[in-house]
């Protein structure tokens, strides 16, 4: 087992603890935005922000909260800016597990 895989195993263990104790990394709004992005995404293409805003999961979320959640998801690595497309396009990344 390599050093990297040992770290991965430790991380998997900590993720299990995080889920069991309800200490998940994502807030409710972040989860809604992420689920909406996963729902809208057609692999392997990017997701457009306007398509996310139209999704019923985020219909009740205010614009500032939505964009804060979007920014947070990018920071946490759940969404990645699309470099080849215009602004407002994101790729959905699956959390490791």
């Amino acid at each position, binding site marked *: *087992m390599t050093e990297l*895989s*040992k770290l991965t*195993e*430790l*991380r*998997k*263990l*900590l993720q*299990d*603890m*995080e889920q*069991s104790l309800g*200490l998940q*990394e994502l807030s409710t709004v972040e989860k809604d935005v992420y689920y909406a992005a996963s729902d809208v995404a057609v692999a392997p293409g990017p997701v457009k922000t306007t398509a996310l805003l139209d999704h019923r999961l985020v219909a009740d979320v205010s614009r500032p909260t939505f964009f804060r959640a979007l920014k947070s998801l*990018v*920071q*946490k*690595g759940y969404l990645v800016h699309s470099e080849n497309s215009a602004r407002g396009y994101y790729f959905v990344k699956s959390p490791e*597990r």
Partner: protein
Amino acid sequence: MFLQTIAKEAGVVSSAYVVAFFVTFELLMPVQALFFPEFPSRASLLFLPHGVRVLSAWLLGWRSILALLPGVFLVFLYVAGTGAFVPSRLAAIAIAVSVPTVIFFVLRLAGWDLHPQVGKNPRWVWIMIAGLIISVVTSFLTNWVFDSSLEDYFAYLIGDFFGLFFLLLLLLLGLRHFERVRAP
């Protein structure tokens, strides 16, 4: 190459053990004395080094014995000075470094293989249970060697259990903070 790996693992694990020891005895013990002034035992009720022992044995298997040895010995040397070389303390060092990996091995022989494997998701509760078994055996053997009181035995058990739990929690929060800082 193999020796390099052993040396690197010993560096990381032993450093973690020494740091966990100093956090436990220099930071947490004074707090414990404030909240439980009537508690007579010198044992810590939140013994973080137990977490280092359990996690290193889980991840490294038998190599954790070599990885833990320098750290455990340094801690004994710090606490007891040259008294670290008396037979009872040398026996306690041997118990501290070997029992965790032996317990994981025995559990595997009994059909409960907890060692990390690719494609298998580890459960933290299982590691906590293994940590508890390791604690029971280590406490029993250490107290037998030192002829300690029953009170010390239970103090060790409580300290080990909460030590492992809080070490996992600290790693979880530390990893989360590190990822947040690292994110673009």
